[in-house]
């Protein structure tokens, strides 16, 4: 990862043309070859960029450009098209390079895993008399988040999501179909538990006889909202 802060103007030529007038910007040159031009704002969005595969070449300015104050011209050319990102650097204020290595990736289901642990500990949130059988109950097509028994001892399969949408209901439906073939478990009822359940998902779940349970993650964690309640 090379980070360059420079006074520069940027042009994009090819399928569409765009021009960024002279200003101080951050230029990121990533290991995959991509080049991104950022301003000090706009969140994650670069002002302009070139996606890989592409190649970067740095050239001396011609006489006319040098006259205008350009110290070097960066040309990022896309491999698969004629698109080019041209950065005319007037002054480099910072230039550093860092080896970041391989990124482990985004762990999206951190909250989901925590929710599963918390719900297993607070299984009575499913209803009075519920008991935990186990987390990650294995079926032939994958693990069900939680298997529990209700007050009458009937099996309850729980699918946990942060945001409950149609896909989650479909997933639970597949598990339920399989689990209901097991004479030791059947009949298994489904519970779709999430911090937030979309109306369409709720409608589909209820139509299939799956109960919806909305979970309050903050309350389960024992975090006080700061607003006192009566009880």
């Amino acid at each position: 990862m090379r980070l360059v802060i420079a006074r520069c103007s940027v042009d994009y030529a090819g399928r569409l043309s765009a021009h960024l007038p002279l200003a101080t910007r951050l230029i990121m040159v990533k290991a995959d070859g991509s080049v991104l031009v950022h301003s000090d704002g706009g969140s994650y969005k670069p002002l302009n960029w070139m996606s890989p595969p592409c190649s970067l070449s740095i050239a001396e300015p011609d006489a006319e450009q040098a006259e205008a104050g350009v110290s070097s011209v960066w040309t990022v050319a896309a491999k698969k098209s004629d698109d080019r990102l041209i950065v005319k650097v007037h002054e480099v204020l910072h230039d550093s390079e860092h080896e970041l290595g391989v990124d482990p990736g985004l762990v999206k289901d951190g909250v989901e895993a925590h929710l599963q642990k918390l719900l297993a500990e607070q299984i009575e949130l499913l209803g009075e008399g519920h008991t935990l059988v186990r987390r990650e109950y294995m079926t032939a097509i994958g693990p069900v988040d939680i298997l529990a028994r209700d007050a009458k001892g009937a099996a309850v399969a729980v699918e946990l999501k942060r945001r409950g949408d149609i896909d989650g209901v479909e997933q639970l439906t597949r598990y339920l179909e399989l689990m209901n073939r097991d004479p030791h478990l059947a009949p298994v009822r489904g519970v779709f538990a999430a911090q937030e359940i979309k109306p369409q998902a709720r409608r589909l779940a209820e139509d299939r006889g799956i109960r919806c349970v909305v979970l309050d993650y903050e309350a389960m964690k024992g975090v006080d909202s700061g607003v006192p309640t009566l009880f």
Partner: protein
Amino acid sequence: MRFQANRDVLSDAVSFAVKLLPQRTTLPILSGVLIRSTDSGISLASFDYEVSAQTEIAAEVQEPGVILVSGRLLADIVSKLPNAPVQFATDEGKISVDCGSAHFTLLSMPVEEYPTLPSVDQPAGLVPGDAFAEAVAQVGVAASRDDVTPVITGVQLEIADNVLSLVATDRYRVAVREIDWDGSAGVTEATALVPARTLQEIGRTLGHASTIQVAIQNNDDRELIAFTADQKTVTSLLIKGNFPPVKRLFPESVDHYAVLNTGDLIEATRRVQIVLEREAALRFSFSSEGLTLEAIGSEQAQASESIDALLTGQDTVVSLKPQFLLDGLSSVHSEFVRISFTKTDNPNKPGPVLITSQTSREQAGSDNYKYLLQPNLLLR
């Protein structure tokens, strides 16, 4: 099937039957209105397994029969018909509707697949319509809209000693109202937890009747409640679960309170809250000079206003969420309002305030409405 009905009567009946229909349903036949014509008139019904609406109107029936037709479409059509008798007839799977020079043809849905409507046999008791409608509106505002806790999205109805009390809470406030219950029909003690939204719709729809007949019954494992008035019946399944025992949160007696003009306090609260940020609370300082409302916490603007208040007891300051206060103030329905302060031993939780009606500065109201509100922590 063939019948003729008065346009206004029919329009009223159709809009009643359609009002509680679900917006979208996974079973399209449930979006229909079931119309049954018999020698005595016609009945209209809708049902979605949770809530049903049934009504009967007089009509000139030429041929008895049953049809099922899209509810919202029929309601739209009937509400716009010219002022003339409306003629319904079935014709090879289609339904024709004629009124004056207007003619409509509608598709009919298979009647055989329609679920059996819940029947109501044994009435439990009677309530006065106007008081019931008022009570539902007063209490319903406090019901929770959060699906995390389904039991408190309902209004708890408790019948005991010729009194029906309605209770609702969202943990931040509790509203209670008691009205007369005529249990001579049979039931003198019962509880029922009814979804607040359904109950509010029932209050609006049936509140004009002089009395409303209430029935509670158990149909294979699911309990339901029925409200009947003016040939109109609405049934709803009850919410399962135990309603929290919130009535005991109310103090038995309070000697620390302020009496204010309700309208003045509502207007001042609405004005001062303008500068508040969302979810922020207003600061109410009660003293022998009156009440001062202050909106602080926003960098852009501050506001304050002082109004008259008759305080009994020591000076006190509470922090209240304006909307919660306004909900209570709008529900007392009296010229004056009493705000009572309760004591607390918990330093992290101010004592709740109790809002009750007051007919004059000195005279407490007699309507049994109580609204208990949890103040926020005082900042600064």
